[in-house]
């Protein structure tokens, strides 16, 4: 297998996966016992107006017909209009996805930077008090609800210590959108003040993602390192007297990273979907808050749009993980 066939293989499965995902969400959204037409028509609408809205939006037609119609629109690049924002959904998504991506990228990066070294240390000092403490902490962080972590961080760092902003993405006006990732746009605009402000806003929500994510990464890294430590190649290198630091941080780490990278891909996917809760706590204007509001308003097309968007991001992150695996473990590569 080379890189091209990996990409091709992923692409072949990409469309059927998305189709299946959309079908499930389409049906689920319509099982929910609420009438979108009533909500869409407005609070004071008469029965006739509601019926008229229902006709216009096609909610009384057969489910399959609605689904095929929806797919036809999507294929044309039209995700419909949000009943709530009255904007094309694709524009809503384009505004909000970068905020979520920025948060998730920083969160996953921090998870890796926290999880990998601690996992290695934990494995090397197996059954020491450090190992026990780290494992206990990881179980707690994985077990505790993310919104609770978020609120504890807010109370400590912004309300008590006042070091970091409580919520939001930026204090001032956002810089000119080039990448729509505010930190990078601020750097591109050469505005250091703005960059630091954006960074300070990122810290707490990213940490909320990174703590449980880092705990997962740490546990998998620990297991992988323990495997590698007892491998014959490490026994050989030890017998040959290679310095311990070279054996650990060059050879063992690389072996351990193959499983860590897979975990990072999963953490990324979970973070995108888990963003709903964290974005709500931090009033982060991303995909998560949009998804939550769309569901509450039975904004079907918006829910479908978010699903599609998350599915595509997930697929891309899986592809990147596959490619990264090939870089780390070149055995399968011709």
């Amino acid at each position, binding site marked *: 297998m080379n890189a091209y066939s990996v990409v091709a293989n992923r692409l072949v499965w990409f469309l059927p996966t998305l189709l299946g995902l959309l079908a499930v969400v389409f049906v689920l959204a319509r099982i929910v016992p609420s009438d979108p037409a009533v909500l869409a028509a407005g609070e004071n609408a008469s029965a006739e107006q509601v019926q008229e809205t229902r006709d216009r939006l096609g909610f009384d037609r057969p489910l399959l017909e609605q689904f095929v119609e929806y797919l036809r629109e999507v294929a044309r690049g039209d995700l419909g209009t949000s009943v709530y924002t009255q904007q094309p959904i694709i524009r809503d998504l384009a505004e909000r996805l970068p905020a979520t991506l920025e948060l998730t990228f920083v969160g996953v990066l921090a998870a890796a930077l926290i999880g990998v070294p601690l996992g290695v240390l934990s494995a090397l000092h197996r059954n020491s008090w450090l190992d026990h403490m780290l494992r206990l902490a990881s179980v707690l962080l994985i077990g505790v609800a993310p919104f609770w972590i978020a609120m504890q961080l807010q109370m400590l760092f912004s309300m008590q210590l006042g070091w970091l902003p409580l919520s939001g993405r930026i204090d001032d006006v956002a810089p000119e959108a080039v990448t729509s990732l505010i930190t990078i746009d601020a750097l591109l605009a050469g505005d250091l003040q703005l960059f630091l402000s954006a960074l300070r806003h990122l810290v707490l929500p990213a940490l909320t993602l990174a703590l449980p994510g880092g705990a997962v990464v740490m546990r998998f890294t620990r297991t992988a390192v323990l495997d590698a430590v007892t*491998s*014959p*190649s490490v*026994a*050989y*290198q*030890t*017998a*040959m*007297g*290679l*310095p311990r630091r*070279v054996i650990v941080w*060059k*050879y063992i780490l*690389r*072996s351990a990273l*193959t499983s860590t990278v897979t975990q990072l891909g999963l953490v990324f996917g979970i973070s995108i979907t888990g963003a709903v809760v964290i974005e709500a706590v931090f009033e982060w204007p991303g995909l998560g808050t949009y998804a939550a509001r769309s569901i509450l308003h039975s904004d079907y097309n918006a829910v479908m749009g978010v699903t599609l968007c998350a599915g595509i991001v997930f697929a891309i992150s899986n592809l990147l993980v596959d490619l990264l695996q090939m870089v*780390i*473990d*070149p*055995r399968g590569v011709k």
Partner: protein
Amino acid sequence: MTALLEIRDLCLAFRTDKGPAQVLDGVDLTVAPGEIVGLVGESGSGKTSLARAILGALPVPQAEIASGRIRLDGVDMLRGGKAAESLRGRVVTFVPQDPLDSFNPLFRVGTQLADIMRYRAPPAKEGRFGNARHARETAILEMLDAVQLPQSRALLDRYPHQLSGGQRQRVMLAMALLPQPRMIIADEPTAALDVTVQVQILGLLRRIAAERGVAILFTTHDLGAAWEICDRIIVMYAGQIAEILPRTAFFAKSRHPYTRMLLASLPEPGREAIGISGESASPLSPPPGCRFHPRCPMASDICRKARPLPSRSEDGHLVACHHPWAAASSPAHV
């Protein structure tokens, strides 16, 4: 002649769930500079553990060295700390049993050679305009040439799994030679190879030892292989030394019943191979007296009670047996 390697009364046990397993019991041996010594015995005779003890590559938590000492080049290898550490991979190097497992599969062969060269070999001579890296690469290529690996430059870019078994073991040999050691410990270096390749590797080992004056301690269960290249053979049984034969005494003048039975078990044209009945002594509960007595046709009462003390003849031939064969008798019928 001062010994390069001197082992005195070495006792080694592994902690197991069923109690301590006595792997080595009172082992005495010496290896002179430039000498090739074969350690022969069945699986479980302790030959690999002996080799690993010298290299400090025992499974640390389970292994317990009860008594004895290992001195290499005057340094205590068991309690020598940093001094012993610095000998490993410099004065004494290692050729492992399974070359494929002993490489890290994720790194190019060239990288692994370069790290041995960089951390264990004496600094390569620098040319007037050369840098250290370039000098190291030259030294590696010369060494690959010496172990008869043609097109060595292309080989450096390959991964271990892309090499043949013979190529891998030649690279291992090169890695063992790069530090310019005084002694190589080769643990069944041909066990994973085809018969034709075995002969080549053994020949190479013998020639290199002679050319460079390197001593070799070579474990094998293959008496034929030992006879091909060794100056002396040490026959081990159940963690004890049964017989030490100088080159002149190979085959014809062996005196220990176990050695004779081992020889008789070799297939040879015109003669039935005779197996040794019974099972190898369990290290968990070794038989009292001579450990071989349950399987020995010549066993008498004293064999069941007292451990035979080694007796040495003037040509260096040593045998630990209450009823050894007379030195001159023919080994044909046992």
